[in-house]
Each structure stands twice: as C-alpha cells, then as structure tokens.
C-alpha cells in the first residue's frame, strides 16, 4: 500500500516515517487531491480505514489538522494522510460520501473541532449533548476543560417513512446495559428503518488528558474507558507512548501483558455468551456460563489485585510480576475452565431454542461489513479475515501460534460461534505463554517523551480493534490522544443488521455486536444533588 501510494502521490507530499511499515504523509499544497488519494487507498483489497484524528494545531501550524489512518491488513502497513485545514475556512472534502465508514469520524470532528466536511451525508450532531450551544467546540485549545456553556435543547431526529410508526429502544431499556437510543421505524412487527442517537455517556476523556493528566496517569484513566476491555485500552495507550518515545519494553512484561489480554478476552466472551443466552430466555445456560466467568474474574483478582485486571499497565512495562505460585493458579484454573466450558457449550448449542433464535437473524453481509469497517468477531462472522493480533502483531503475539476463526454466514449464530472458538484459542494461548515465559525485568527505564513525537497502536480487544493515537506535547504531557474503540465501527453496522427483522429480535441483534457504549463515547461531571452538569475544578494542592 505504501509503495503504490508513494509511486502515485509521493512527490507532491511531505513524508514522515513513524517506524517500520508505518508512514505519515502531509498534504501542504493541494487539498483537492485529497479525495483521489483516499479513493485510491480504499480501492485496495485489504485496506481499511483505521482511525481518524482531528487536532487543533493552531498554535504551531495556524491550522487544524485532519489525519486519516489507513491499514493494509495483508501487509501489516499503516499509512496516514494528513490534511491541514485553515482556521478561517475550516472545510475539507468529505470521505463519507463514498466510504460510509468515515461517517462518524467526520461528524465527530465537526462536533468537537468545528471543522466541516463538505458533502457529508448526515450533518446532524453526533457527540455533543442536545442542549450544547452552536459554535462552541470543546476540543479546541481555547476551550477550557472546566467550561459548560448553556444552550437550548434540540435534536433533529430522522422522520419515519410513510406508513410506519416509531418504536423506541432506549435511552433506558431492559435489554440495554448502557444508555443508547435506537428509534426503530416499524411496519407492524417488521423493522424498516433505524435512527440511532447515542453518546449519552461521553466523558471527554481526550480533553481530560490534555487538561490535567501527565502521561503516566493516563494509563489508569484509559482503563476506565471500558468496563470490560479496560486492559486493552491501557495497553494500546502504553504501546502508542512507547512507540512515540522509543521505549523498549522488556520481553517478560510483554508476555505478562499478553497473558492478561487473553484472560480479558475469556472474561468478555463468556460474559457475551451468557448475555446472549439470557436474551433468548435460556437462563440456565446464562447462569452456567457466568459461573465459569467467575473463575476468570477470581483469577484476575489473584494476578492483578482487581477483579477487572485494573491498574497493571504503566508506560514501559507492567507493575506486578507473574510469580511461581500465580502461575500454578493459572494452570489449575485453566484445566477446570476448559472442561467446564466445553460442557456448557455443548449444553447451549444442543438447545434448539437458542440455535433457532440466532440462526439467520441479523445478517450482515461481507460487503456491508467492509463498507462500515467492522472489526472483531462481527467482521469475522461476516467473512472478513482480519485480526490485529495476527496482522499487526504486538506484545508477544509474534512468538505464539493461534488460529483466527472466520465464519461466512454473518448472522448472530456465526458471531456466537466465532466467540466460542476464540475462547478455546485464548485458553491455548495462555498455556503457550506460561510455557514460553522469559525471565528478566518487567519495567523499562526511560527518559522524557520528545515533544511532537507521534505514536499509533492497536490492540485486538474482545470486540475488535482499539486504536490509540498519541501526539506528545511539551513537558511530558499529551497534546492529542485519540481513542477509537471497536464498538465505534461495529455500532454503525447495527441499523443495517436490524432492517428486515422483527422487534422481538432487536435486543438480540443489538447485543450480538457486544456493544460497549462507554467505550465508544469516551467530559462531563454531573452534580448529583442539583442535577446540573458542570465540571468540578480540583486543584492538586494549593500551595501559597
């Protein structure tokens, strides 16, 4: 991908190399070529839109920068195209016109930075709350972290088609575990259209990191992005910083990270299988699966000191070593887990009720999965053979052997099968890690992060890829931190999955992507007593 791109557009661009197989191109002169570049990149067979970053670079470059990152999954290459958008006319040509996967990215940049994408198919607000005033952009440098301007509540929902009625799922609904608002347009029982409004749990973590955290504190905040795949987020963040600052992580630390990443995958997939069983009304299987999940959580508690693998990753390594007695614990638990899991899967899949509810429901075709850049088990169930662990190896995955399960049906059952197979792969991976665990230190020694250094890193979370991008600022702070969670892409496919099925299937289809809204929606502190939202300013030590 990089070679072809260079041959075609190279001479007119400025190039920066971020590392082996990673390149960044900056467009200084001709933004009209931008759409052609993106088109030619996305025409590649295995190229996907990785993430998109909008940065307020007015302090240095007198412009906003928009960077599209593309990944070639067959070659393991990453390529960024950066476009500078002038401050007085913040408009750039939209990519979402011809590649739907860019839709949310461009809506987000329009909300948070006030940079408009010309020709954007859906110009509505995405992230900012309904009562946020027009023309106030929270990610700009001149917007203070603690501000919360008043505005008028208004949101233009899509009009239901003729002859249909609206069935709302959410913001609070028994089948949703976090707030999200799906407006189903139904004709009788059949869903004919969907309008999604989300981002009720947006916390503006990116502004938080810019405002008052140093780079090592961000690790612990990054974990709180998600309640399930927190370790994936902190690892992705730490890897991005390590890449930017050129820190070599000790091998043992990488193995310990991998062990915990796999443990987290076990825990997340078991959670999902349980929820799926619960949503089809098969509660015995739900209880059985969660009983096994309890073992994983207990193991995580013994390994990390927290049931949710929190607080272990720091930049440069990990904080706790895998001592011999812990290793024995893992071995013992894995044996039991494998046996119990096989039993429960047999029990679950032998139930006609479960299989019939999942089969042929919520089908996502391969073309649609590629158009929306779906990732993780959702993409793999639709036949997209893509796994970050294999295609962009990080931590210890280079040395381990595993298979990436791929199904072609694209229905809920295929997603379940992929996850069940991944659980088996994870158990085998953990055993390999225990066998191959190298010795040595667990924390690297390092100096400052150079100002202006950039790093991008992805981790295969249980739900798909989590991409973290870092631009280092001065005095060991972060200038821009961009998080793209797996659900960000997968959630956009949900309307396509829902259309054509009935209301009764809707909760299962929504749950089948394993949505994590807080992951996707990554500042706002709500004062519980008064109900007003404001940001509480907390000075660390007032020293006069």
């Amino acid at each position, binding site marked *: 991908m990089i070679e072809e791109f260079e041959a075609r557009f190279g001479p007119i661009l400025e190039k920066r190399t971020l590392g082996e197989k990673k390149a960044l191109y900056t467009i200084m002169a001709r933004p009209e070529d931008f759409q052609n570049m993106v088109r030619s990149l996305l025409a590649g067979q295995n190229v996907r839109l990785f993430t998109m970053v909008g940065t307020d670079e007015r302090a240095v470059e007198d412009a906003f920068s928009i960077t599209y990152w593309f990944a070639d999954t067959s070659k393991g290459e990453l390529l960024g195209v950066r476009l500078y958008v002038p401050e007085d006319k913040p408009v750039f040509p939209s990519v979402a016109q011809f590649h739907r996967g860019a839709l949310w990215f461009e809506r987000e940049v329009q909300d948070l930075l006030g940079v408009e994408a010309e020709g954007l198919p859906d110009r509505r607000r995405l992230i900012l709350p309904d009562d946020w005033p027009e023309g106030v952009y929270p990610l700009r440098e001149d917007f203070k972290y603690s501000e919360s301007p008043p505005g008028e509540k208004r949101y233009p929902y899509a009009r239901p088609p003729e002859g249909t009625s609206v069935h709302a799922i959410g913001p609070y609904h028994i089948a949703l575990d976090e707030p999200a608002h799906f407006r189903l347009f139904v004709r009788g029982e059949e869903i004919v259209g969907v309008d999604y409004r989300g981002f009720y749990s947006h916390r503006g973590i990116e502004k938080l990191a810019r405002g008052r955290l140093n780079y090592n504190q961000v690790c612990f905040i990054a974990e709180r992005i998600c309640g399930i795949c927190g370790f994936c987020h902190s690892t992705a963040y730490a890897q991005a910083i390590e890449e930017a600052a050129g820190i070599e992580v000790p091998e043992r630390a990488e193995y310990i990270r991998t062990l915990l990443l796999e443990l987290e995958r076990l825990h997340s997939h078991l959670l999902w299988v349980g929820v799926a069983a619960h949503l089809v009304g098969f509660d015995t299987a739900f209880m059985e699966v969660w009983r096994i999940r309890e073992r994983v959580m207990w193991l995580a508690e013994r390994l990390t000191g927290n049931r949710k693998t*929190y607080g272990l990753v720091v930049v440069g390594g990990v904080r706790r070593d895998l001592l011999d007695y812990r290793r024995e614990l893992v071995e013992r638990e894995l044996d039991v887990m494998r046996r119990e899991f096989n039993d429960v899967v047999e029990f679950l899949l032998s139930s006609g009720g479960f299989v019939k509810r999942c089969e042929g429901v919520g089908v996502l075709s391969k073309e649609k999965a590629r158009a929306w850049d779906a990732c993780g088990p959702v993409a793999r169930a639709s036949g997209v053979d893509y796994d970050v662990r294999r295609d962009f190896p990080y931590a210890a995955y280079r040395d381990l052997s595993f298979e990436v399960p791929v199904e072609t049906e694209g229905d809920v059952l295929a997603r379940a099968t992929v996850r069940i197979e991944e659980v088996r792969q994870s158990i085998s991976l953990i055993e390999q890690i225990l066998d191959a665990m190298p010795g040595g230190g667990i924390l690297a020694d390092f100096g400052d992060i150079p100002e202006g250094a950039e790093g991008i890193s992805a981790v295969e979370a249980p739900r798909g890829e989590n991409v973290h991008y870092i631009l280092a600022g001065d005095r060991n702070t972060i200038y821009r931190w961009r998080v793209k969670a797996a659900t960000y892409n997968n959630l956009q496919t949900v309307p396509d999955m829902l259309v054509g099925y009935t209301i009764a299937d809707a909760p299962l289809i929504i749950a089948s992507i394993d949505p994590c809204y807080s992951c996707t929606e990554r500042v706002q502190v709500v004062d519980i007593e008064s109900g007003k939202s404001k940001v509480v300013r907390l000075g660390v030590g007032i*020293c006069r």
Partner: protein
Amino acid sequence: MTKAYPFEPEEAPPEYRGIPRIDPVLCIGCGACANACPPNAILRIDDPENGTRRIVLDVGRCIRCARCEEVCPTGAVRLTAEFEAATDDRNDHVEIVELRLARCRGCGKYTCYTERQVEKVLSLIPRGILDFDRVREKLPLCSECKLKLTVLNATKFGEVEP
C-alpha cells in the same frame, strides 16, 4: 456456590488492592500521593491563614490503583483488603488528615510545608557530610524569605549570615 454473603464474611485474596487508608501518625503531609493520584481522589489543601494542611482522601473517587502507596515516602498510605464501600452518606467516604504548617523563621508567616516535613528532612540529613546547622537555619523559611536570603547570599558572596 451461593453464600449468605452479608452475614457470612467474604475475604479478599492477599493480592487484592482494596480501599486505601492513611495512617495519620506516619503521614507528613508532603502531598506526593496527591500528585500521583490519577483520578484526584487525594487532594492537598492548604489553609495558610490558620496554618493547617489537610490531606483529603475521597474513597468514592478512588480507583484502587495503589499509585499513592508506591510514592508515599513514609509508608503512611496503605491499600487494605477491605472492599465494602457502600454507604448512604457520601461524606463517609472522605478521610482527612490535618497537619500543622511550619512557621517561617524569617517573617513568622506559615510556610507551604508542614512541621512533620521539616522533621523528616532533618532526620534524613546525614550528620557530618552536610553542614547540619546551616540547613537547620534555612529550613523553616517561607518561599519569599528563602528568595530574599538567596539574593542576599548571592550579592554578598562568601558571607553566611544575611
């Protein structure tokens, strides 16, 4: 499998990082924990009028990362194995250690460090290597007086007393 939990105590494993507690006897009020805390669960709040410093720990904000335990120079902050933080009053989560600020030797105002910090620094200085008395003279000075002293020393190079 099922336990009568609230009636039957549940023990956390030895590796568990639970609710942090500050030992008020060991705490010197340096605020290292407040600097390290990612979610600002520990605050260092000075009252220069009344000469007190409060180290305020809000367990409700705490994420149990144990960064405070790592950086504490005296071992005052320790993470316990307790995990039950449920309460119907949010003020129950707040734990305050109040310490006296040291008075400046020069102007008599309160400085930005505590008496215990001064003691701690003095106990750390190895006798015989540094001029102990000279450090002792300078120590409880507020930042303004320290600045004046430095300028004075710089102008009268070679003289010790201002």
